[in-house]
Each structure stands twice: as C-alpha cells, then as structure tokens.
C-alpha cells in the first residue's frame, strides 16, 4: 500500500531541497492526509460486505475508485506544494489550478504545534501547524519527518523573536529519536533547550474526571438508556436509529480523552511546551507573553474531589470552519489536577497565587441568590482576576496589558440595588473577565482607573521587551 504514492512521484527530480531553498513535504504525506478518509471508507466497505455479502461487488468497485481518486488528488497536491523559510518569513505555495502562495511573517506567529495522527505516528511523520492571530486557518505543513518537524519548529520559534534560542539549538537531534511509537508516551521531547516539567496529568484521574464531567455523564445516561431499552424489549434492532447519536457522543468523550491523555507542561526558553495525546499526539509551544487569559474551572462534582481544570487562551483563529466546537474550547494546561497543581501553575504563569478575594456586596444576593457567594474580583499590579459561576465556578485572570476594551453594564435590577458589572475583553475566543455585581461606586471607580492601569502596563511591557523582532537575519 505504501508503494502507491511513491510510485507516482519517482519521476520528478524532487529530493529534499531545491536550489532556491524550497522544500517539499515528505513523500508519504498524501497517504497520511488521506488516512482519515481511507479509514472511513474502509469501515464503510467492511460494513457493506458484512451487511449484504452477495451484492458487494459493485459497491467495492465504487469505493476503490474513490480511494484511488483521493490518493491521486493527494499526490498531485503533494507535487505542487513547496515551502521555504527566508528573511523571517515562511512561505507555503500550493495549488495546481489556483496557485496559492501564503506568507507567514514569523514575528506574527502566536504558537507552533506539532501534531501526529495515528497513521503518521506509525510512519514517523508529523504535521506542523502555525497559529497566527486573526488568520482564519493558519499555516500547516503536512507532513514532515518528526525530527525535521521538531527541528523546524525550533528554528522558526527562535527566529520568531524568542531569546537566544539559537545558542541552545546545538547539534541536530539524533536520527534515532524517531521511534515511531514510544511506549504510551507523547512525542519525544524536542531535544533542544533545557526543559523544566511543571505538570504531568494522572491518567486514571483524567479518565475519572471525564466520566464525571458533563460529556461523560451524558454518554453514561445515553448508554444506560440504550441498554435498558434493549433489555426490556429484548430486540437490539429497536435502538438502531439512535446508534449514530450514541456513537457521536461516545466519540466526543473519546476525543477528549485522546486529546488530553498524557498532558505534559514544561517551561523552556522559547516558551511553554505542551505535549499530549494517546493516538494522535500534539506538541505545541506557546511563546512567552502570548497568553491572553488564564481560566480556572471548577465544576460542582469535581470540587468534591478537589479537582479543577486550568485553561489558557492564546490569540488564534477565531473559528476554524472544520472544527468549530473544538476550536472554541480553550487549551487545557491542566485537564484535571488538584488545587495545589493549579495554584502552582498559576504561580508559574502569572507570578501570583492568590484567588480573588474582594467579595460582592451582600445585596447582590437579591439579584443572584445562589451566585453571589462566589462573586469576587481582585487586582494586582499586573493582572485582574474575577470569579463567577455557581455550578461551575470559573476564575479568570487577565493580564492588564492584554485588555482590549472595558465595558460597564448596569441592568434595571442592578440599578435598583445600586450595583454594576464591569467586563474586560481580551483577544481570542470570547474570554471575558466579568467583575459582576459590584457596588456602583466601586464599579465606577474600576471603570475610571483600569484604562490607565492597562495603558501603563502596555507601555511598561514595550519598554522591557524592546523591539520584538530579533534574529531575523540568521537566515542565509
């Protein structure tokens, strides 16, 4: 099977590099990119064969034609795709009929991920994803050999204006590091830069936490309902119409487990490194100073166990069309962890461990009887923190320098009670720190002082950082 795409590309003289510094993707990438479709089609074929084994011939031919078309399209797209790093810009050219040439200035890159799907992992390949703010899709290079991808990421990140990452780049990672399937572990760590591991998720706890989460509870109820129906009627056929729904729910739970399994968070000179995944592994680096907001989520059931979840928001594509629900989710630094884990991580990220302590006024209870006990906010010289939510308590930290706009809102009930809410918006996926139901005078004071504090924080950052562009000339 693997010989198929290679047979098609023996013709063009396209080894790794051209004269002008243009590179090709790995020859096996069409296979990997088509992998998901192939699996789907394979399942369909098997299902058809299983369902009616007498007349499968015609369907099989159709399916084979589809498989062939997908593979040929993949090979063509591989043939016309090339990429280049020059002058601090990554360029990706693709497209046979409609040429598409995209430039990604590396100083604008928010984060770079290395993603390995199951098939890619078997073949030792990986996909590189660039995330830029505002851009709808970002850039993707699928696929490269894993060591190449890791190295390219190092290089791009160091060019992207991090510190002297070049000094720690050192010798290229040993070629033996490709190990297609390290035992249960995530992607072998990028060999460069001293890393300090901050957090490692406990698999058993993760499984338990997902079962106890909303998605897990829904899945359990649906499965239980189906089992009950089957047991009562004695006919498995009765639930057939609902099988796709059940399958979808189970898939969502599985996807969450798969995505968050084995999460490891580490700090390194080039930023915060996250690795996770069971079958499909993801490894991403968040550049320093790119975190827009940090959110601590404590659902009611988890609180009983002392568990919580810590998420970060990085300015990125607002919604990716292919997977909107997933891109709305924030990246979890701690999918599930103890309070101590979370406090430790918050201390690392923000340099503060305090939870918001300025509670809402008692009369807020008239407007939000259940909520008011949890409402709180706090301000230090660099962050604003705000807590809200009754069933699922959410605490959001927003760096002052990241605040995009400040809104003061007062509804009719609030006006009667002399309360008001102040909201701070940051770039990204609709994260808002909501300082809710404060005394009107206090809210007015916040609205009056916060813009100045945020402005000072922005200018301070500008002074400390200096020019954000450095190391661009290192490319020859």
């Amino acid at each position, binding site marked *: 099977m693997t010989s198929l795409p290679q047979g098609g590309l023996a013709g063009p003289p396209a080894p790794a590099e051209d004269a002008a510094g243009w590179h090709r993707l790995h020859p096996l990438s069409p296979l990997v990119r088509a992998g998901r479709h192939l699996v789907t089609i394979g399942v369909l074929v098997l299902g058809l064969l299983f369902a009616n084994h007498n007349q499968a011939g015609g369907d099989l031919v159709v399916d084979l034609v589809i498989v062939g078309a997908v593979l040929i399209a993949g090979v063509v797209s591989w043939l016309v795709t090339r990429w280049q790093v020059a002058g601090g810009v990554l360029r990706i050219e693709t497209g046979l009929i409609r040429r598409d040439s995209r430039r990604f200035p590396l100083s604008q890159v928010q984060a770079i991920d290395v993603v390995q799907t199951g098939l890619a992992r078997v073949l030792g390949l990986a996909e590189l994803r660039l995330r830029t*703010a505002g851009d709808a899709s970002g850039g993707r290079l699928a696929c490269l050999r894993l060591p190449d991808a890791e190295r390219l990421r190092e290089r791009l990140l160091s060019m992207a204006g991090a510190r002297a990452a070049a000094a720690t780049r050192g010798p290229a990672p040993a070629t033996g590091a490709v190990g297609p399937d390290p035992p249960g572990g995530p992607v072998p760590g990028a060999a460069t830069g001293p890393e300090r591991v901050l957090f490692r998720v406990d698999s058993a706890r993760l499984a338990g936490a997902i079962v106890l989460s909303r998605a897990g509870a829904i899945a359990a109820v649906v499965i239980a309902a189906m089992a009950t129906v089957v047991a009562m009627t004695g006919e498995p056929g009765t639930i057939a119409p609902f099988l796709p729904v059940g399958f979808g729910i189970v898939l969502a739970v599985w996807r969450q487990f798969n995505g968050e399994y084995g999460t490891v968070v580490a700090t390194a000179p080039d930023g915060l490194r996250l690795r996770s995944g069971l079958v499909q592994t993801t490894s991403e680096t968040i550049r320093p100073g790119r975190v827009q907001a940090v959110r601590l989520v404590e659902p009611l059931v988890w609180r009983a166990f002392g568990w919580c979840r810590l998420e970060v928001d990085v300015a990125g594509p607002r919604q990716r069309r292919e997977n909107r629900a997933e891109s709305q989710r924030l990246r979890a630094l701690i999918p599930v962890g103890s309070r101590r884990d979370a406090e430790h991580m918050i201390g690392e990220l923000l340099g503060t461990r305090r939870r918001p302590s300025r509670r809402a006024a008692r009369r807020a209870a008239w407007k939000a009887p259940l909520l008011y006990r949890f409402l709180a906010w706090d301000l230090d010289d660099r962050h604003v923190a705000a807590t809200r939510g009754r069933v699922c308590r959410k605490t959001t930290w927003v760096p002052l320098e990241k605040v995009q*706009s400040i809104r003061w*809102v007062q509804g009719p009930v609030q006006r009667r009670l002399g309360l008001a809410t102040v909201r701070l918006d940051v770039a990204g996926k*609709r994260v808002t720190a909501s300082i809710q139901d404060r005394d009107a005078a206090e809210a007015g004071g916040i*609205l009056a002082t916060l813009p100045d504090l945020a402005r000072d924080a922005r200018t301070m950052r500008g002074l400390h950082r200096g020019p954000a562009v450095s190391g661009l000339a290192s490319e020859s």
Partner: protein
Amino acid sequence: MPVAESGRPTGTADAGVRWQRPSPRLLLARRIQAGLVTGPAAIASGLVAGVAGSAALGLGIGLGLVVAGLLCERFLARRVAAWGYAERSDDLMVRRGVMIRRQSVIPYGRMQFIDVTAGPVERSLGLATVRMHTAAAASDARIPGLDQAEAAKLRDQLAALGEARAAGL
C-alpha cells in the same frame, strides 16, 4: 463616590469628559425605521384578522399595533438621547442604553479597524454609523447617527490616533 442621578458611573474619569451626542436627526431616522416596521405589520395583520374574523377585530388589532408603535416611539426618544461618546486622551468612551446601561472604554491603541456604514434610512438623512473593532470579539463600540462628514472626520481621527498608539497583541 456618589452615583450620579442619571445612574451613570461616576469617578475621576468623568470629571473632565465632554460627551458628544449623535445628530438630532438620529431620532427621526429611528422613527422612520420604527414606522417602516410597524405600519406594514399593522396593516397586514389587521387585514388578515379582518378577513378571517370580523372587521372589528381586524381594526382593533391594526390600531393596537399602531398604538404599540407609538408607545415604542416614546421609548425611542430616550434611547436616542442616551447615546454619547467622548474622545479622551488615550481612549474613546461610548455610552448607550436606557434599561440596560452600558459604557465602553476602547483604548486607541487597541483599534484594529474602523467601519463607517449607513443603511438606506440613515443615508437618506445624511447620517452614518461609526463602528470600532478590536481584536476581542466581544468589544462593542459603535456610534450611530453621526453626520456623514463628521463620521468621516471621526474615522480619520481615530485611525490616526490608533496608528500612533498601536500596541501589539
């Protein structure tokens, strides 16, 4: 810090702020818009009710809708009066709303781009809406009912200020 009688937040920020208001023609524009919705709706539902039920019922429903529209008109005047914006040294403040009062602060350095739009009614009255966009999806800052010339001036002014104070993400 006492709460002002209007229910607006008070504080040092408001001390030297000069609020500017949209053009008085905004009220006319809003009235026309409300009339364009209410009139046809009243006639259509009156006719339907008149044909299906009795003529009196149709008349009643039609008149009822007209009265509802007129009541809304009372409210419109207050809403239009609630709009205001103030250009401060580092940011723009926009306030609006009667039932739910809102006041937004948008630093000039955070503006990504600025839109000037005008619907058919606004255009016929020589009005336009200026809308500011930041990188946050939730930011909400628009100023309706500005004179078209004034809107263009404000846009250029804001764009220049934004460029001068641009801050990265």
